[in-house]
């Protein structure tokens, strides 16, 4: 579903490049907000997964339109291209960092539908504002026909967005699905990311463009290595790693986004190109990481079961407790949905772990062993994401003049 949405954004944005300068920015923005609003409503009312995926694709197309149209409109509203681009970039960077945390809170407090139900009024407000904006809101489109100049910065941006798959999606999956945190508690951990992104703004202003890009990409790469090397489930270590990723994101993405825009080639056109490349990076990374996880997780699941069997067989607990606990545990595994870790503590608690210290110690060892084994199955995917950030750093260093041209 995440891939479908981002693929729709990427494809629509890349197709729009040829058209965007022929249609007014306000029209594109208005159309995008309308499509996004209707698709968000459809998502919130979806009754089946295929319908939801289809609605998410339409929503992605709407997002591409509104992102393409909003840049020139913001430029005109703020009175200058750099100011408009700065607002556009900051909103994009902060929004993508905030999304998972906000989604987690809405899911737990209400329902997953609330995520889309909350998006609809925001899009409606945007639509009203766009319609109410003065008609003079339009910037002269540029004269340069080629977007070649922006390629290096866009490649860096695409790679960095690819790396964000590790920060945004894998981290959420790990914290909520594997470690068993509730969506709100998970959001609490992941919210370190947008906070760090915002907090890094003053630092970003003190650095040269190249230093901000390279330092930011290095921090994202290193933060992802730290996520890959999590030795066991630890909210503190994960939050610390995410904080470094957030700072890296806040340093590199705004500068790169600014460099990726070429007003001389048309603000709407170069903005659309950037949106397309960013989401293409996300989609390609998702497409690469999904098979990695699909290979690693079942293997880790089997290893976790075998290690759990070792823990239980060797536990200093009587047979009359050990065997029923083992049978109940096996039942929990059978009942768990694919990709979910069952409630491992329950069989122990049901058989008296509250009053039997040996059984309680066995429970804790078994839970830790399984969570550690599955946590480490994420390692290749995090390292792959880190490699993408490192590649962005290498491209920025190699083509430093062209990146910041």
């Amino acid at each position, binding site marked *: 579903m995440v891939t479908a949405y981002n693929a729709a954004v990427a494809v629509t944005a890349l197709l729009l490049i040829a058209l965007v300068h022929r249609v007014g920015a306000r029209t594109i923005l208005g159309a995008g907000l309308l499509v996004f609003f209707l698709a968000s409503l459809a998502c919130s009312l979806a009754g089946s997964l295929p319908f939801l995926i289809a609605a998410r694709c339409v929503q992605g197309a709407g997002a591409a339109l509104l992102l393409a149209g909003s840049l020139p409109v913001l430029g005109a509203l703020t009175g200058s291209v750099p100011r408009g681009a700065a607002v556009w970039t900051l909103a994009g960077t902060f929004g993508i960092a905030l999304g998972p945390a906000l989604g987690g809170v809405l899911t737990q407090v209400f329902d997953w539908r609330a995520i889309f139900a909350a998006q609809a009024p925001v899009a409606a407000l945007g639509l009203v504002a766009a319609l109410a904006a003065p008609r003079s809101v339009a910037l002269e489109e540029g004269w340069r026909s080629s977007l070649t100049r922006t390629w290096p910065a866009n490649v860096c941006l695409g790679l960095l967005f690819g790396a964000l798959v590790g920060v945004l999606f894998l981290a959420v999956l790990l914290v909520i699905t594997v470690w068993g945190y509730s969506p709100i508690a998970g959001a609490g951990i992941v919210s370190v990311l947008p906070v760090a992104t915002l907090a890094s703004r003053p630092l970003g202003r003190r*650095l040269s463009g190249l*230093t901000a890009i390279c330092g930011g990409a290095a921090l994202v790469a*290193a933060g992802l290595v730290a996520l890959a090397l999590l030795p066991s489930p630890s909210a503190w270590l994960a939050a610390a790693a995410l904080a470094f990723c957030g700072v890296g994101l806040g340093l590199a993405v705004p500068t790169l986004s600014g460099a990726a825009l070429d007003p001389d080639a048309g603000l709407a056109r170069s903005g659309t190109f950037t949106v397309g490349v960013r989401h293409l990076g996300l989609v390609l990374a998702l497409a690469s990481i999904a098979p990695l996880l699909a290979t690693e997780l079942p293997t880790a699941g089997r290893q976790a079961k075998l290690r759990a069997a070792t823990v239980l067989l060797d536990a200093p607990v009587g047979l009359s407790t050990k065997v029923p606990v083992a049978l109940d545990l096996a039942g929990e595994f059978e009942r768990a949905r694919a990709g979910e870790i069952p409630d491992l503590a329950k069989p122990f608690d049901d058989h008296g772990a509250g009053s039997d210290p040996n059984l309680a110690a066995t429970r804790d060892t078994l839970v830790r*062993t399984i969570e550690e084994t599955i946590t480490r199955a994420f390692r290749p995917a995090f390292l792959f994401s880190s490699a993408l950030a490192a590649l962005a750093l290498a491209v920025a260093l190699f083509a430093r003049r062209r990146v910041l041209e």
Partner: protein
Amino acid sequence: MTTRLTFGAAVLLMLLAAVSALVGVELGKGAARSVSPPLAKPCQARAPFTGGGIDGLIQRIVLDGLDGAACRLGTTREELVLSLRSGTGIRAGHADQTTVEAAIRAGLVRSVDEAERRGDIPSFLAPAVRRLVETVPLAKLIQGGISLGGLLR
């Protein structure tokens, strides 16, 4: 201007040092070590179960027996135990039910021999235990072991 840049660069360097320290902490906490307990190889000798009493003795015999059976079948004790639970009959890897049962009985007999040698089972009782292991259906044997362990604990 130069001072501002230097200060920013210094903060950036500190952040890079801090993230390196975080990776160091993770390595110190065992990130590079494999998850414990390691998955034992078939036929690898293990320390015997240390529990006391009749329950401990039964577990020692059963676990040793499972180790022996797993070794004969070319699998691990854990894989064998998980296959017993599968509900599709006693199977392990490509071995059929008869082969698995024979391996488990042979493993248990060897384990009883070891227990007798260690003095865990009196010599006059060992032949009877061996006979039980060789003749009683496995499901009843397991259930009997659990009941006896619980009864005499």
